C-alpha cells in the first residue's frame, strides 16, 4: 500500500490492497484450478474434486484456457496476479500426455516450482458412496515411502503437496474434529494418493483406536516433467523475516534432571532484619537488647 502510486480512494479498495500486500505473517495460500485447451472428463472431475477438498481457499475456473505452462508462464502469472493465488493446478489431455495434471506454486507472482503428473486411475468423490466430512476440515497429511526423502524431485513434490493441502494454520484444533486424512505413498515410481475418513473408536486407554473409511478422491499418479526453481531462488523464497523468529528467553538454563534454573539479582540484604518464620521461643524480650538471632534463613536457589 505504501508503494502505490495511486492511493485508493475508498476504504474497501484500501482493504483489498492491504490484503494482497506482502506481510510478516502471510495469508493462507489460495489455489487456482485451471482447465487446459483440451481437458477431458477425467481431468475435469479431478479438478472439481480437489476444489471440493480445498473449498474456501481455491478458485475453479470454468472456461478452458489454451496455454502450455511448461513453455509460457505469462498467462499463469497473470491469473495469479488477478486472483491473488499462489498455488495452481492445471489439467489437460493430449495423445502424448494423457490425463495430465500440472501442480505448481508461485513466489512473488512468478512461477517457482511446477511438476507434471499423469493420472493413471481416479476414483471420484461421488463414486465412493460413504459419508463425507464437512467442507473446510483441516486434513492430516501422511507421506509414506523413502522416495520422498531420497529423490530431489520427490522432495519438492512432497513440499508442494504439503503446501497445497495444508489449509489454514491454526493455533489449536478440536481433537474430535480430526476427520480427514490424506495419505501419499511413493512406491516404484508411482504415487498413490488416498483420502480416508477417520473414525475414532473406543480403546482401553485415552488414545482412541483409529479405523479408516475410504472417502473422497483417490489418485494414482506418475511423475512426468518437472520445472523446479534454482537453488538460490528456492532459498530466497524460504527466507523468513527476522521478526518471526521466536525470541529466545534469556537467563533460563536447564540441568540434566529437567530442573529449570533462573538467576535473580538481589541487593545486599541485612540478614539480621529478614522476615522469617516466627518462632515463639526465640522471641526477643524487651529486656534483652543483645544481638538478635531470629533464625538464619538458608539460601535456596530457585527452581521450578
Amino acid at each position, binding site marked *: 500500500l505504501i508503494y502505490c502510486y495511486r492511493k485508493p480512494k475508498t476504504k474497501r479498495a484500501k482493504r483489498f490492497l492491504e490484503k494482497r500486500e506482502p506481510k510478516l505473517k502471510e495469508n493462507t495460500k489460495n489455489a487456482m484450478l485451471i482447465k487446459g485447451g483440451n481437458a477431458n472428463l477425467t481431468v475435469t472431475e479431478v479438478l472439481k474434486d480437489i476444489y471440493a477438498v480445498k473449498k474456501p481457499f481455491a478458485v475453479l475456473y470454468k472456461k478452458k484456457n489454451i496455454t502450455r505452462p511448461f513453455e509460457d508462464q505469462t498467462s499463469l502469472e497473470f491469473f495469479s496476479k488477478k486472483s491473488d493465488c499462489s498455488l495452481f493446478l492445471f489439467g489437460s489431455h493430449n495423445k502424448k500426455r494423457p490425463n495430465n495434471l500440472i501442480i505448481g506454486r508461485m513466489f512473488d507472482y512468478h512461477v517457482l516450482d511446477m511438476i507434471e503428473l499423469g493420472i493413471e486411475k481416479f476414483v471420484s468423490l461421488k463414486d465412493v458412496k460413504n459419508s463425507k466430512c464437512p467442507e473446510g476440515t483441516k*486434513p492430516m497429511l501422511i507421506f509414506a515411502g523413502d522416495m520422498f526423502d531420497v529423490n530431489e524431485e520427490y522432495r519438492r513434490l512432497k513440499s508442494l503437496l504439503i503446501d497445497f493441502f495444508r489449509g489454514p494454520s491454526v493455533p489449536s484444533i478440536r481433537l474430535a474434529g480430526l476427520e480427514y486424512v490424506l495419505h501419499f505413498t511413493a512406491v516404484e515410481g508411482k504415487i498413490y494418493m488416498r483420502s480416508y475418513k477417520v473414525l475414532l473408536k473406543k480403546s482401553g486407554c485415552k488414545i*482412541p483406536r*483409529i479405523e479408516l473409511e475410504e472417502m473422497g478422491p483417490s489418485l494414482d499418479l506418475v511423475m512426468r516433467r518437472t520445472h523446479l526453481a534454482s537453488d538460490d531462488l*528456492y532459498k530466497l523464497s524460504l527466507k523468513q523475516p527476522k521478526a518471526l523468529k521466536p525470541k529466545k528467553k534469556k537467563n533460563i538454563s536447564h540441568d540434566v534432571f529437567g530442573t529449570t534454573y533462573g538467576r535473580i539479582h538481589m541487593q545486599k540484604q541485612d540478614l539480621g532484619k529478614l522476615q522469617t518464620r516466627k518462632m515463639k521461643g526465640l522471641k526477643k524480650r524487651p529486656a534483652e537488647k543483645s544481638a538478635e538471632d531470629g533464625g538464619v534463613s538458608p539460601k535456596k536457589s530457585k527452581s521450578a
Partner: protein
Amino acid sequence: MAAVRVEEVLAAAEEQEAEKRRSVTVEKELELEFDLGNLLALDRNPPPAAGLRGAGPRREALLRALARDNTQLLVARLWELPAERAGGPGGPLAARLPEPAFRLPREKPPPRPRPPTRWEQFARLKGIRRRKRTSLVWDEQAREWRRRWGYRRAGGDPARAWLAEVPEGADPQEDQFARLRREKRERVARNELNRLRNLARAHRAGTAVPAAPLHPTGHQSREELARVTRVARVSTASLGRFQPRLPKEPAEPPSRGGGGRKRRFEPLLGNLAAERSRQLELLRDMGSKKPVLDITRAVNKQLRQEEAEAAAAKGKKQSQRGKRGRRQQRAGRSSKKSGARRQQQQQRPAGGGTGGSRKKKA
C-alpha cells in the same frame, strides 16, 4: 437349541468388543517424523513393493492398512499435546498445536522496511511525537459534538461559506473566494508532490541502483548529479588528479585514510637527515651476514595470530583477554609489519642503487 445359539451370539459379540479394544500401539521399523503444527507425519519405511504391484482390491487393502497404522501413530502424538476445554468447561476438547516446523516457501517476499519520509526524519530529529486526535470536536455554534471532518462537520459546510474577509494589506479588488480556491488547489498539489517524492525516495532506496544513469528527462537531483560527476572525473587514466575544475567547484577533499598507505609519498627534498639515516640503515642491512627476517620468530607470531583469530571467530569477547591479549596482538602485528618492510627494503636497494648511480652521473 436356542440357548446354544444365544451363547454363540454372545461369544461372537464379546470377541468383537475385545477386538475393538485392541492395543493402539503400532510397530514400525523406523520412527516416523512428525510436524504437529501442520498435522503432518513422514514415514521413511519403504512400503512393501511386492504387495502393491498387483492392481485391485488387495492393493487397496494394503494401502489402507498402512494408512491406518500411520494415522494411529499421528493421532497418538496429537492426543499427547496439552489439551484444554475451548469455550469454558463443557466445551469441546481442543489441543494446542505447536508452530509448524516444516519449512515452506513464502508466497511473497517479506516486506522491506521503508525509509522515513522527510517529515518523519524531521520529527525524529526534533523529538515530535504523534498526538492522537479526538474524532469529535465541540461545535460552539451548534452546541454539540460534531465530527472533525466529513458529513456535518464542526464549523459548518465549507462549500456554503458565504463570507470571506479581505485580509489587511490585500488588494481590495481581488476575488477572495477565488484566492481561497486557488490556495487550496496549490496545497493539495504540493502535498501530492511531496508524497510522490517520498515514494520515489523509498523506491530508490529499495532498489539501490548503484550506477544509475542520468534520468533521461533531465530531472536529476543534486546528489545524483554530484555523484555522477565524481564518477566521471575518477574514470580518467590518472584517476582524476589532473582534471580541470570549474571556477567555483570545490576542490577534491583529501581522500580518507591519508590516500591509502601505498599511495603516500614523501616530498622529494624534505628531511635530509631522515633520508641519510634511511640509506645508511639500508647499506648496513645489505652488508650484514645475519638474515633480516627471523624465521622462527615470524612463524611463531603468525601461529599465535591465527589462534587469536580462531578464538575471536568462536565468539570470545575482546575484554576477556584484557591487557595481555591486546599487548600480544599489537606486538605480533608490529613485528609482522617490520618483517615485511625489511623484505621490501631488501628489494628496493636494487632499484635504489641504480637510481643513485644515475643521479650521480646527471
